[in-house]
């Protein structure tokens, strides 16, 4: 990480696409389904669901974060913004 501001760092780490492990072109149905699937996995205490990989390092996945991520992508305007940051190349 050289010249990425802390805001940009957080934006990449908590990018909804990255949190959900989906590409920026995922369909609304895929997003809902993946969100539901991750919540089930977290609810069942399944290993592996609780962490995810991001370009700026590993993140901790919680049910709140998953719900937030799905909700962010339901709004077309917010989704556009997240699509941009999901594409930030790792540094």
């Amino acid at each position: 990480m050289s010249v990425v501001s802390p805001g940009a760092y957080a934006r990449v780490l908590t990018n909804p696409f990255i949190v959900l492990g989906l590409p920026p072109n995922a369909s609304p149905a895929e997003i809902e389904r993946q969100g539901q699937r991750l919540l089930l996995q977290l609810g069942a205490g399944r290993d592996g669901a609780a962490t995810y990989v991001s370009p700026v390092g590993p993140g901790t996945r919680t049910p709140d974060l998953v719900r937030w991520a799905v909700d962010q992508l339901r709004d077309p305007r917010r989704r556009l913004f997240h699509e941009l940051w999901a594409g930030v190349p790792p540094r």
Partner: protein
Amino acid sequence: MPGGTPLYVGIDLGTTNSAVATFDGEVCALARNSSGGSLTPSVVRIDSRGNVTVGARARRFLETDPANTRAEFKRLMGTAGALSFAASATARTPEELSAEILRSLRSDVREATGIDPERAVIAVPAMFELPQSRATAEAARLAGFESVELIQEPVASALAAGCPTVNPAGAWLVYDLGGGTFDASLLEARDGLLRVVAHDGDNFLGGRDFDTALLDWVLGELSRRNGVTLERKDPAVAAAARSLKLAVEDARIDLTRVERATIATSSPLVVSGREIEVDIAIDRATVEALCAPIVRRSIEVCTRLLSDNGFEPGRIERVVLVGGPTVMPLVRQMLREHLAASLADGEDPMTLVARGAALFAATFGLDARPKTEPVPPAAGAFPVWIHAPTVTADLQPYLLGRLGEGSGRATPAFIRARRSDGGWTSAELPVDSEGVFEMQLLLVSRATSVFGLEATAADGSLIPLNPGTVSIVHGSTVGDPPLSRTIGVALADDRVRPFFERGAALPAKRTFVQHTVSTVIPGREGSAIRIPIVQGEFDAAHLCRPVGTLEIRAEEIGAHLPAGSVVEITLTLDRAGHLAARAHLPQIGKTFEHVEHLVLPDAPPAKLEASLTSLRDRLAVLRAAAFAGRDTEAIRRLGGAERLLVDAARDLDAARGGDEDAAQKVRRNLSDLDAVVDEEEANRSWPEFVSETLGLLAAASQWVAAQGNDTERRMLGEAMAAVRSALDARAAESVRRHMRVVNQLACASYFRHPKAWSWELDRTAAEIDRASDRDEAERHLRRGRDAASKGDVDGVRAAVQALWRLLPPDVEANTRVYDSGLR
């Protein structure tokens, strides 16, 4: 969950009337109260022996015994005050009174179903602020509910009116004019998921305002005929006004069906020892003339909601009417004229909310029946925990299962799901080493699908599972209930750090890092870090409403904490409006969590008056300027603000007469007015604002062109177009919103420039005289210069960020921002 038919309970806890509905998965029914009606008046009476009566029986005493009978306490939910009951010399909070209503509704459900419900969904106005939601959840707890979910009333109404099923892809407007509150909500159904696009409303606009307008008219008539002066602000008139109010309400309801009615009371009014006969004829035209301005205010909210979200009125599929006052022909007629949409008729506007809440309980799987002991596993069956949605809009949802303890029997190695209609069977899936299996099912569209689970051991022998089946309903669902207003932390420079944006799904939890503004020294009087939590949609923190404060006193910190120290703030918000705040100070390794005064602010008349006077003066200045400049558009906008001011002055009179509810209404109106005046004052300096904005746009496009990538350039193009059209429309608020995106893009590009942090270092060095700790600042500056000479960009950045934390915020701004100790 126990087997058998489920029971879902939905409650409409209204200002005037409440209702409860039950849903068993197929039929939605209203539970009748002891008087046989489906509406229970939200009225509580406590007699001299301390006996509590609720509903229609209590309402009868509203006129004759107002000192011991209370109504409309929903409007005071979340405020600190308690309401007194003279005869029993007791006082009850609005939560406790609401709990009485909920207890009564709960027993109605028990009468109807034989089950004492433990869980329920309660509908709350979409515009409810956090303290009000929290108070509602508390009332439910007091009434004996083990847990409740809150749903916004418009979402409940749209669900009950069959929104997503009638038209799977369309926009609906829910027009909810209740006794005391008005909500307008724009909803959109897509992929079977009902989403609240946005909502707007007025917490203090309702059928009651019709009655108040009529009451003022009646008092005026009586004054004229009897040669006296009767005004609501006179405490001597207050008692008489209460008995008149019921007569006025009856007349207004009569006039929805007939053309003429009479306002009369059974006994003459007694004002200061004088008897005044009440017998006044009134016709529908008079009522409509008196009520039209109130309806117009509600329609203005609707058109603002539509235009803010880029909707032409013609694009609305249907308008759902909710609330008793919507039966008034005037309301329907004005809505048809102004919104050019068809009205969803044929639904009872009084019980829609309760029915929708019950349907929502089902999509949430919130069964109200008491939990029973788990049934002992069937002999030989292997226990398994199934995680799958009860209701889903997804035709191919996931199911996840985890095997329990099998006590030495053969363990399932493979699982297969078979749909009971025989139309689909899954592949045979392995159980993993954690004892977990996961599969994607295929549901029957718009129906209930039952799946049988078949397990086989490694040797191929069949093992029965317990439970052996799972059923899932394919239907429309509501996403997690969205937050009605943005919640954030007020910063010392009057900005808000938003934690949860309006519309965010609940529950939610977020953490941000902020920095302290001043040094905290133990032993110094009043030394503390104040973290004010605010709710609202404004950029300026002082315009948002405070909903809680986390205050960390120097004694608790127990150490000298320099200005610029890191504070990690975590806010957690659940669906029932419980807000928790936690602050962690990594420098001393301590964590603090106690949120104080989560109540609506007090509204003493003297303070309101001062605020009213100041707003009146500011408006006068603006009006003079608008007339001088012949700015007809501004004159029109100011006209609206002045109407609000007149209303506020009238309600302030009532507040002086002891009407606490009117005081809260004034507080709310003045706060809105403050925002209007702020915006208008910004408009006066419009030419400067435009040239400043254009300058920023030019700089942004330069940076993004040089340092940005293709996506950023595309985003900037879109944001700039939005800014330009907002400039054309002279919508300052909208310009600022889009400029935030422009600034973010420009910043990202700017800081990619290898020299950016060095430039920032030079710029900050020029302001070093203002630093809260000059020596510390000098040290960071030297460190930064040193790093710059070595080409160490990370080092320069660290020094600049440390310097920023030492620069003071604008002191004048901070006093308006609830003394925030953060930046």
